[in-house]
């Protein structure tokens, strides 16, 4: 399966040139871009690990691309996403987020159904990858 979180997951994987143009857009809006990675892509896992801090005061996308490549060297078989933070009043949140790296195989999620009173069902989504310990999930 292919996880479709983030802004561009329905398009073919972005090339580095395309990623760089999106980063440049973010920087031009005055947003700080953060690199985040995880091997637990559960849809409610908000807090992916941070690769350093959000890059404040950056003007050129090349800086982000350099860090991204460093991150890929270490976590090349994990999910990596870029998130852009807007500090302006009324937003103060993420304004753009998209996946820039995926593991070779994406095993996806199991849906557990726990049948309870009446016809109710309690649902639990769990990542097949997360069955294994952190750091050893994608081989």
């Amino acid at each position, binding site marked *: 399966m292919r*996880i479709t*979180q983030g802004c561009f*997951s329905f398009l073919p994987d972005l090339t580095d040139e395309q990623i760089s143009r*999106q980063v440049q857009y973010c920087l031009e809006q005055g947003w700080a871009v953060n690199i985040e990675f995880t091997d637990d892509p559960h849809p409610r896992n908000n807090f992916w690990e941070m690769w350093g801090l959000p890059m404040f005061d950056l003007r050129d996308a090349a800086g982000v691309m350099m860090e991204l490549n460093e991150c890929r060297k270490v976590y090349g078989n994990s999910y990596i996403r870029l998130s852009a933070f807007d500090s302006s009043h009324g*937003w103060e*949140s993420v304004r*753009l*987020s998209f996946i820039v790296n995926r593991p070779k195989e994406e095993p996806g999620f199991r849906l557990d159904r726990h049948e309870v009173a009446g016809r*109710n069902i309690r649902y639990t989504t769990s990542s097949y990858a997360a069955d294994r310990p952190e750091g050893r999930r994608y081989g």
Partner: protein
Amino acid sequence: MPPNELMTASIPTSRRTQHEETNMNQHSMTIHGKDRYKSGVMEYKKMGYWEPDYAPKDTDIIALFRVTPQDGVDPVEASAAVAGESSTATWTVVWTDRLTAAEKYRAKCFRVDPVPNSPGQYFAYIAYDLDLFESGSIANLSASIIGNVFGFKPLKALRLEDMRLPVAYVKTFQGPATGIVVERERMDKFGRPLLGATVKPKLGLSGRNYGRVVYEALKGGLDFTKDDENINSQPFMHWRERFLYCMEAVNKAQAASGEIKGTYLNVTAGTMEDMYERAEFAKELGSVIIMIDLVIGYTAIQSMAKWARRNDMILHLHRAGHSTYTRQRSHGVSFRVIAKWMRLAGVDHIHAGTVVGKLEGDPATTRGYYDICREDYNPARLEHGVFFDQHWASLNKLMPVASGGIHAGQMHQLLDHLGEDVILQFGGGTIGHPMGIQAGATANRVALEAMILARNEGRDYLHEGPEILAKAAETCTPLKAALEVWKDVTFNYESTDMPDYVPTPSVAM
């Protein structure tokens, strides 16, 4: 915003033309002292409801009415009557006024202008003291402003065009239960419009069949599906059946995509007790969102907004019924006023027009509605039908929803007209796809992502739109099919409601 903007209502002066410079706004005719309270009938303009010298206070609520007096009725008297009948007046002088601080409580019409290019119509600006209104109550606000005057015999027609709500009053309302920022954080979706679809056919599907449509659409790539306004609990589908099957669909699609999904479960019902019961069940099942219809009434809407805030629920409002009073230019209540009231009342989503789809919506007027929903400060923009500066005092932003007759081939126009913080709902444009519902959803999602990518890259996406879509369709057969099927579908009809003022190009200095 300059600090003094809050202090006075911004009443634009630039629009006065020579033709309009009448002596209409000249002087007060108010009778004072003992003579004011002589028994009998007195003209409203003499009773203190016409005060052309009055400078509205920063705490006043200001209403702008479009007044169409009956033939032979003085427009100033008609406007004063509107002020009177929407505040303290009755048809005759009453001595009991003298037991009160009557001058404070009288609404004051302070300006009357002829409407450009509309003979017989006048814009009346009326100021109301804050003490005339109960805190945090749309029911009270609306009962005061539109409660009594719309059937007044000396008027042919009356329309409430816009309102300036002082910060002092705005702060007494909860506002959107969730708001755009938190909704995006909860849904984990940033940087693009959200996508939805209304389940079709509107009526007749069993719970199980209904859930099928929800599953297919969500799995195909939509973020939300939606009950229609009249899907409540009918013989063909009891509400509990719908909720149970829909949540199976949502969870299954979530696991299949790794994305958060939602379906607006319509909890509209005959009583508040029934609505609370349905909302509680939606919560118990883990839904992220519920839905109500405008026809449940302002108080019920505010109650559900408070419930939604307490229960971490996004609250979708379908504006069912609004066109009965918002659509005609001369009579009723403009939708921009309804949008303001709903932002105060506390809903998170509101249908606000598509411009290009099948339902009424002139681009400039629609832009005005969207600004009212999404901005923290609205400067007066007559060309968008926004008459007053409005400060929202950090009240949450309200997500506009574009729904009705839109399809993937219009993606560039939709993004251009409506921006990024909007929910695009393709009902027929998803479910009617020749390759099935999932394909329809995928077509919309691919079209959207391709357009956002292009916009962010700095491309002239509005003009290159068709090209961008064609390119994206090369690697997406469903999009190719969607573009083919709906390529010629447009809805070009004349709008029945549009701004009265158009910007005049000026010579650059």
